[in-house]
């Protein structure tokens, strides 16, 4: 079973709620609890915010594409931008005991998802793939 939903929105923060409107029910319907689904939404929202802030440097006229794939044993969320490529080496979530504004987004992504992979192998932009395993209830469930 593979179910794929794709959403493309302009790179303006006023469209972030749409991403949440799509990702939340998909996460719940894939078997995650409401709390887990809220955290998945948070991490995806942070990834979109980072694309707007860093890949597009605030340019609201570009696009963000998000695909959500529901597989038997995991959910994966892929975020595609056509902006400045991420320097993955530079993305380091900050230490949490250093209380200051900022630096939390990448920490949330890592805390919520089992894997966070930035791929800059395309001609343009970055593909970020977030993957979270489902807790399988029984054999073949």
């Amino acid at each position: 079973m593979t179910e794929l939903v794709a959403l493309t929105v302009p790179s303006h923060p006023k469209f972030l709620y749409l991403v949440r409107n799509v990702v939340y029910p998909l996460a719940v319907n894939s078997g995650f609890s409401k709390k887990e689904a809220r955290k998945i939404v948070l991490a995806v929202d942070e990834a979109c915010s980072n694309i707007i802030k860093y890949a597009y440097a605030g340019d609201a006229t570009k696009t963000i594409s998000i695909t959500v794939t529901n597989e038997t044993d995991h959910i994966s969320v892929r975020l595609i931008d056509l902006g400045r490529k991420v320097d993955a080496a530079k993305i380091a979530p900050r230490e949490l005991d250093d209380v200051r504004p900022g630096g939390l987004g990448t920490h949330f992504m890592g805390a919520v998802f089992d894997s966070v992979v930035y791929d800059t192998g395309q001609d343009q932009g970055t593909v970020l793939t977030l993957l979270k395993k489902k807790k399988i209830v029984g054999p073949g469930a």
Partner: protein
Amino acid sequence: MNVDIVTEKIALGYLVKVKGDVDMNSSTEVREAFGQVFKQRSSAMKALVVDLSQVRYMDSSGIATLVEALQTCMKQGLQLRLADLSPPVKDVFELARLASVFEIYISLNDAMAER
């Protein structure tokens, strides 16, 4: 559009009620509401109470706004009291491990009680 903010004068100082989604699109509005309160600063003012019971969503930009407000409060000798965190706010506080940094009250009544 996604966030509604109401500011009220209370015995302790000011109460800011935040309703809706606090994200990269709307956190500026929350920051501005706090800014207004800090401008009204008088010696009689003891605390800024923030009612978070009606927050449907909060991301790291909302957290950043609260951390900034906390820093301003500390400079001004004010208390920042966060009241009645909704489940989405609790989630993001938990992930950011911020529960110990803020003064958090279970209910708005508790937060508004003189201390």
